[in-house]
């Protein structure tokens, strides 16, 4: 055979993976109405869509974690039926799931090799595993000594990297990454990208899911947009802009931009002065006045979320002072913080916020049991419903009744229910940790509106977030956290570039340093 016919054969070669007419329902929920997906060999194929669009469900079907109700799946041109994860693994599908799927009691090395242990005469070849581990850890940028550490002792970002290492340990023809970058730092993402590039150059296909649309342009070749359980379009990414992708995702125009609102009072509600909390954050100065929204921006792991936890009494303030309403306070637990008029919307909705199989009314009122009773300790069903219905109306929560269980709600509505819990007893200080994480554009907009209204109503609001658009959009003042310290502070007019630079550690590019802060943010503490 001559080289020309070889090239022709390659051009005519079937795609690595071709899905057509995929459908999947969970009970009455139609997670995937109709999906087609074609992934060529050696390409990075981005999969984007709003929360709940069906991305994770689709890749779970490819990975064998779920079975499609209908549809056809072809691998290198051959029809395949994948009915379990082992089937998929046998086909060379490796998956990094949205939530790290690891074993806390087992060591990093064991985690990486679970399900495909290297064995020699029936026993695990620890030697071979150790040898590969050294390589793998270096590849994903983790120290070699981590091999023997139980995964339960790692940070969430490290766990994500272990998940990636795990997917690299086996022979793969398709590597699926479901939002791998959500909790990684920029430098960690760089390492990930270089790994992806190396893989694709050797012919591996990568399916890459992310909500960070900008990063897709640096890594992806093709993008498939999903909306409402359907694959809307597949195009080379070079033909699109971020804005166009966003429009395809929501099926309309994106309204961005900061909501104008009156500036807050000078009545300081919360102030941290030189505050540290173990090695979570150090020497933080910040203040929030009544009617003011202060945004703390930081990548996950930067310590932004830890400030919220410390203010709410979850973690101790070990050094420095926490001033609340003019008095130095140490809240020993959320209970004490709540009693002082602080409310907090936790970052992780399912783990920290939601009482899954309880009703919406239960979920809304559980933080304010005193409000339910005329006599202390008593629950009045009438009051409970009245409070819940009021909140459902105020936050425009979509539900037929307050008696519905929260686990049957969509992500955005569930988030509103948990936000409602924080508003039952009108808080003096509202702390919001990642208020719109995992929430789609529509619900996000509503939640932002609600936050503004609360501040307009006189509440002091502290938002910690890793969403740059969000912090720019809602904050009156922006603090940027990096490595447990405040790296910079900005007024409302700051640019994306300035903030990103500060978060990434480029001090020179930052517009202002913590030293020359706006007057009035400090002096009011007596």
């Amino acid at each position, binding site marked *: 055979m001559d080289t020309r016919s070889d090239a022709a054969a390659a051009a005519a070669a079937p795609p690595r993976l071709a899905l057509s007419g995929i459908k999947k329902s969970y009970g009455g929920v139609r997670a995937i109405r109709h999906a087609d997906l074609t992934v060529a060999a050696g390409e990075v194929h981005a999969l984007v869509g709003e929360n709940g669009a069906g991305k994770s469900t689709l890749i779970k079907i490819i990975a064998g974690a779920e079975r499609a109700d209908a549809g056809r799946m072809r691998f290198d041109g051959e029809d395949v039926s994948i009915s379990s994860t082992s089937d998929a693994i046998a086909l060379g599908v490796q998956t990094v799931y949205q939530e790290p799927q690891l074993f806390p009691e087992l060591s990093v090395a064991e985690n990486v090799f*679970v399900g495909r242990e290297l064995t020699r005469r029936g026993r695990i070849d620890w030697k071979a595993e150790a040898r590969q581990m050294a390589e793998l850890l270096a590849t994903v940028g983790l120290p070699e000594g981590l091999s023997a550490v139980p995964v339960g002792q790692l940070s969430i970002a490290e766990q994500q990297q272990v998940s990636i290492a795990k997917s690299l340990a086996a022979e793969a023809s398709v590597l699926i990454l479901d939002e791998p970058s959500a909790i990684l730092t920029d430098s960690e993402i760089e390492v990930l990208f270089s790994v992806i590039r190396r893989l694709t150059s050797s012919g591996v296909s990568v399916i890459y899911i992310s909500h960070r649309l900008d990063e897709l342009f640096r890594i992806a070749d093709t993008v498939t947009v999903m909306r409402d359980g359907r694959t809307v379009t597949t195009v080379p990414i070079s033909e699109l802009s971020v804005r166009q992708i966003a429009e395809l995702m929501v099926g309309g125009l994106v309204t961005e931009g900061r909501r104008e609102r009156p500036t807050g009072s000078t009545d300081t509600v919360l102030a941290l002065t030189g505050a540290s909390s173990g090695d979570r954050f150090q020497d933080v100065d910040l203040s929030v006045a009544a009617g003011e929204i202060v945004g703390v921006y930081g990548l996950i792991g930067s310590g932004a979320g830890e400030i919220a936890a410390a203010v709410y009494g979850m973690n101790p303030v070990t050094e420095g002072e926490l001033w609340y309403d003019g008095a130095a306070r140490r809240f020993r637990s959320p209970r004490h913080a709540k009693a002082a008029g602080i409310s907090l919307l936790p970052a992780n909705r399912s783990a920290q916020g939601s009482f899954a199989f309880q009703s919406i009314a239960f979920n809304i009122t559980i933080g304010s049991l005193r409000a339910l009773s005329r006599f202390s300790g008593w629950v009045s069903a009438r009051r409970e419903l009245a409070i819940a219905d009021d909140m459902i109306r105020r936050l425009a929560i979509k539900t037929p009744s307050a008696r519905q269980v929260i686990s049957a709600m969509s992500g955005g509505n569930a988030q509103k229910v948990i936000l409602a819990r924080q508003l039952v007893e009108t808080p003096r200080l509202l702390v919001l940790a990642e208020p719109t994480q995992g929430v789609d554009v529509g619900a996000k907009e509503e939640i932002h509106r609600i936050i503004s209204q609360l501040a307009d109503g006189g509440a002091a609001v502290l938002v910690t977030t890793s969403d740059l658009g969000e912090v720019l959009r809602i904050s009156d003042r922006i603090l940027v956290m990096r490595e447990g310290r405040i790296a910079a502070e900005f007024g409302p007019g700051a640019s994306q570039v300035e903030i990103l630079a500060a978060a990434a550690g480029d001090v020179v590019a930052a517009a202002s340093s913590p030293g020359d802060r706006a007057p009035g943010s400090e002096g009011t503490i007596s």
Partner: protein
Amino acid sequence: MTQILTRDEPPLETAVVRATIRRILPPAVTGQEWVLLGVIAVLWVILGITTPAFLTPGSLQPLLVAVSPIALIGVGMTFIILTGGIDVSVGGAIMVCAVVTAKVMVGADVPLVVAVALSIAVGAALGALNGLLIAYGRVHAIIITFGTANLFQFLGLRIFGSSTVNGIPQTLEVFGRGTAGRTFGLPHSFAITIVVVLIAWWYLRYAAGGRHLYAIGGNENAARLAGVRVRPRVMGAYTITGALVGLAACFIIAAGTSSLDQSVGAGRELAVIAAVVIGGTSILGGRGSVIGTLFGAVLVQTVLSGVTQLGWPSQLGFLFVGLFIIVAVGTDLLREKARKKK
């Protein structure tokens, strides 16, 4: 298909790699096991001093014979608890295995090997039933095994047919009764138990299947996603436990008298669970060892024997067993907390 990493380089056997291997190997003997060994040693020394007969073969041999069935079933129960399950039906299963075995030995006069094999087979079948319902029925193990505990008791009572089995031949003596049951002073039932414990220890440490049990207990869904065939593994754990129950039932017949009545097996499930948790296996799954279970069983029997030999009221024995559970699990908890703080 492409290999992600280049694996055809010559293996570099550096000191670093060797050190890593040693560190990623699960520890052969855990801290909890050393603690238990220490406690048992201290108890034996104290009992040896206060009751001179304690450290004699005449006292230790029956102790080991009594430990054997609990430790043996404990091996299976450790597998089950490692996967995050539990089996409270072993008492009923012992009854079924024991009565079947005793009846064929008396009635059909079959050779010992056949009787033992039958007992193991019956036990495995009962265990497989548990495993089937638990792995495929999507119901928590404690509920299923509460149910099957009743069913097994029913079955056992029906086979007993409202009478005891008398005149069980002494052939089962080989499992540890009298001189015929010992080699170099070691009761055979205990020797068999040790062998089973060592095999199980090896399996849990070196075989992929064993590590999968830990993985399933740690995070069942993640194990499934990693391609571990969770349901067959879970079913296997219950089936193995059943088979060990079958063997243990033979030990129990052998340790009893020449007649067998329907009280056989009653309350054993709690004794086995006690041995497993004293041995440091986490009831939540994902952590534990069979050596610990063996030590746990020895500790419980030492306490019970010790109380009788000291001449204390025998009913005090279980007060100490309870205390030991609290102390053993408590220290484990505290060590865990200290480790987490670090």
